[in-house]
């Protein structure tokens, strides 16, 4: 060992202290030029989180006065942004104080702003919103506060920067605070999520109130930015929440062991607890909580563990293990807020993939209720969402999933949407409510959508659009066609065109089929013809069917419905 026992003793003490430190994740965002990079650079520099060689590599560069370090250069990483002088993507920074470790999600304030802010906020416990004191509350600060509230970031610290430029004027600071508090109230009314806000006047350039309290603003009696960050409630405390455990993987090293591996989304689990597996609804008791370091008597969010149950239950990846007393909802129709993140705008009635907990499910966006203008907080009718738009939508997943509203549970209320062609992540979603209309109802039902049911919603539920299909042929073939449509889940209504009622009232057939079509049903108008000829017609397209081979004929009918656009293309649905 070393010859300096004193320093070894102190390092042991240091390690013991380190072991006790927790972790706070916060996001930052601001407008171009409001000094966000400078603020973070200053925070890192003043907490001794940058090395000398990194400081040396930026000395004499940048845009600050001679002799002054341009702190922004410590954090502006990529060449492209160095060239443009602006940050373009979320960057993660790390620093620690004697009290806790911090992860900063540093998000740019201009290009793709909403997309990046939402990304940063999704994992954040707190958000630091920057306001340029010389300019007041600008759109980007409003946007950041809105997104923090939408993504349920618990605490917001509003750093009013560049106080040095306004002579450290107290009245200006107070006016900005008043302004912003009013805005936060409006935002909370819109999103339903109030945030706790603290305000601190700072100068990132001069270092005022960043780490140490500033002499320049004796009128400010509050904490420095760092002190505020150190005192916020510590991250992830969902131990009292209902138990949620998305199964990532089934571990079967041999026939003696079958364990379900996952990360606890919320709550606490102990051996002996009764759990329910969703969406199947099977119940079992937890026998063991297995880890590499030995079995546990108790485990809670967000630990990654492996559960062994007391009986054989059919469980696979994507299932959600929940406490039997407080299960999650199981639903196919979902209402959600969406942040659109892709160049290609949202397409209603198109199929996307929805990744939620540990499963990926095909989904159709059935209705767009409104878009929220983050600047004015007004809700506007919209046909689509473009990159950085925020909207409220209805979705239908092709098989039921177990979920909670995002407001109650981040782990089981969040999802992303993936474009099936480009594989891009196109949207972030937060579930606001879900229907339980699917015959698998567990938990209490919530209202399924609102207002008049739209064509898109019907199409999404049934997997096809409304239509009128006329088929003529031998009775056996007509039966086969109806049966084949029924077996793939088409909601159809068989109408015999030779019925006396239609002969008496010729316009009746047209009226009935129109109503069915408008209701999203497939009106199947059949005429028996035993002469050996057969045909099918829809939306002006007609095909001659093989009357001798009903398998072939039904395939021809399905093909016709596809080409007429009545069947919605899918990867997994049988249509």
């Amino acid at each position, binding site marked *: *060992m*070393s010859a300096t026992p004193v320093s*070894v003793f102190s*390092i*042991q003490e*240091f*390690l013991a202290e*380190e*072991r006790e*430190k*927790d*972790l706070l994740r916060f996001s930052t965002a601001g407008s171009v030029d409001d000094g966000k990079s400078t603020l973070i650079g200053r925070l890192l520099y003043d907490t001794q989180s940058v*090395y000398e*060689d990194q400081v040396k590599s930026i000395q004499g560069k940048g845009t600050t006065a001679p002799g002054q370090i341009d702190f922004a250069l410590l*954090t502006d*990483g*990529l*060449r492209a942004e160095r060239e443009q002088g602006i940050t373009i*993507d979320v960057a*993660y*920074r*790390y620093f*620690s104080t004697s009290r*806790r*470790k911090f992860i900063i999600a*540093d998000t740019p304030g201009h290009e793709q702003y909403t*997309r990046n802010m*939402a*990304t940063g906020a999704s*994992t954040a416990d707190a958000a630091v919103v920057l306001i340029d004191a010389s300019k007041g509350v600008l759109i980007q600060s409003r946007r950041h506060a809105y997104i923090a509230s939408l993504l349920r970031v618990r605490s917001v610290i509003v750093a009013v920067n560049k106080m040095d430029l306004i002579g450290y004027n107290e009245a200006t600071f107070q006016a900005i605070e008043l302004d912003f508090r009013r805005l936060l109230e409006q935002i909370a009314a819109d999103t339903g999520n109030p945030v706790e806000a603290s305000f601190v006047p700072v100068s990132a350039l001069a270092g005022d109130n960043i780490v140490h309290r500033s002499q320049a603003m004796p009128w400010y009696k509050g904490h420095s930015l760092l002190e505020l960050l150190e005192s916020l409630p*510590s*991250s*992830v*405390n969902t131990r009292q929440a209902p138990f949620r455990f998305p199964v*990532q*993987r089934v*571990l*079967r*090293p041999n026939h003696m062991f079958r364990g379900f*591996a996952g*990360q606890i989304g919320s709550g606490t689990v102990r051996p002996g607890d009764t759990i329910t597996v969703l969406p199947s609804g099977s119940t079992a008791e937890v026998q063991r909580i*297995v*880890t590499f*370091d*030995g079995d546990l*008597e108790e485990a809670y969010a*967000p*630990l*990654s563990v*492996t559960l062994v149950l007391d009986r054989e239950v059919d469980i696979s990846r994507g299932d959600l293990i929940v406490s039997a007393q407080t299960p999650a909802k199981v639903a196919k129709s979902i209402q959600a807020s969406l942040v659109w*993140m892709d160049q290609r705008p949202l397409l209603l009635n198109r199929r996307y*993939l929805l990744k*939620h907990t540990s499963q990926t499910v095909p989904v159709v966006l059935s209705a767009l209720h409104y878009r929220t203008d983050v600047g004015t907080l007004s809700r506007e009718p919209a046909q689509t969402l473009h990159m950085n738009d925020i909207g409220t939508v209805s979705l239908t997943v092709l098989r039921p999933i177990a979920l909670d509203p995002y407001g109650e549970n*981040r782990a089981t209320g969040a*999802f*992303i949407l*993936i474009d099936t062609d480009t*594989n891009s*992540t196109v949207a*972030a979603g937060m579930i606001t409510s879900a229907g339980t209309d699917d015959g698998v109802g567990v938990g209490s039902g919530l209202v399924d959508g609102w207002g008049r049911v739209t064509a898109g919603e019907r199409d999404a539920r049934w997997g096809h659009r409304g239509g009128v299909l006329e088929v003529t042929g031998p009775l056996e073939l007509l039966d086969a066609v109806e049966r084949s449509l029924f077996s793939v889940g088409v909601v159809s209504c068989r109408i015999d065109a030779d019925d006396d009622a239609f002969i008496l009232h010729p316009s009746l057939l047209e009226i009935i089929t129109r109503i069915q079509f408008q209701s999203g049903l497939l009106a199947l108008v059949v005429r028996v013809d035993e002469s050996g000829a057969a045909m099918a017609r829809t939306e002006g397209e007609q095909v001659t069917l093989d009357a001798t081979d009903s398998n072939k004929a039904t395939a021809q009918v399905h093909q016709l419905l596809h080409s007429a656009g009545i069947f919605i293309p899918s990867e997994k649905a049988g249509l």
Partner: protein
Amino acid sequence: MPVAPSGTSSPPSPANGSSRLSHLRLLEAESIHILREVASEFERPVMLYSIGKDSSVMLRLAQKAFYPAPIPFPLMHIDTGFKFNEMLEFRDRTARSVGAELLVWRNEAAIAAGTNPIKLDTKRCCALLKTGALLDGLRHYNFDAAFGGARRDEEKSRAKERIYSFRDSVGQWDPKNQRPELWNLYNARVHPGESIRVFPLSNWTEMDVWQYIHEEKIPVVDLYFAKERPMYVRGEALLPVEQDFMALPGEKPQLVKCRLRSLGCTPCTGAIRSDAETIPEIIAELLSFRSSERANRVIDHDQEGSMEIKKREGYF
């Protein structure tokens, strides 16, 4: 590698009254979640094992993620032919004790042609022996996901790296066109030929890695610990004796008490003077350091933004 539970390594139990999880437990839980997601969503994942401290931590996390089942993917080491012998011995011993399949991939043609950083420059040498070999190896085995031990705190261009880092069909990285990554919902969709690099240690810092090694008693290569070693001393730089072509005329190695702070190729990795013989002493030394961990790597400095350029080309 010890498998038995050790006193300090078990997750906190409520018995000790701890009301919150330490940062290391939070980081561990996050990394294990990532390892399990990738193993479950990709057809052919591989863990790039570089023998260093970060790889050692990543390997331990993989053991934890799938316990009591074995690690469900192979390890692959990209051997440039310039690795310290101690590293290669450690690599083989570790793979055996963990029970993992070990693949070693070398750019044999370039090695046979005598590629070295003196003959070429460090940039072109890396391109052939590291990046080239890596892309070849991934292609050869048709891997669609590769774990790497890189951390975001290592270097500025890594700060914007995703946990799932998408690579096109020629293995390149486009920093302007990264998929947004929200919550812990990772997008694993790739077209045939495309792949993902995955960084389970993204949110760990150098200090976290050493503390974890300490708490978990994870074995690491002896070169990290200070002892008397023969070195060529050039100003501040200490160059290991492994490669004799580096010697200047008349230059003689001296015995210097030193250690390596990060493990790279012999010609490009300098040692630092140090008395740190134990992990607590290394951590104490880290606290007093005034330069970042990669400062002794020649490769990061040969061009402004050099790491970013390498990453675009496919380097880890």
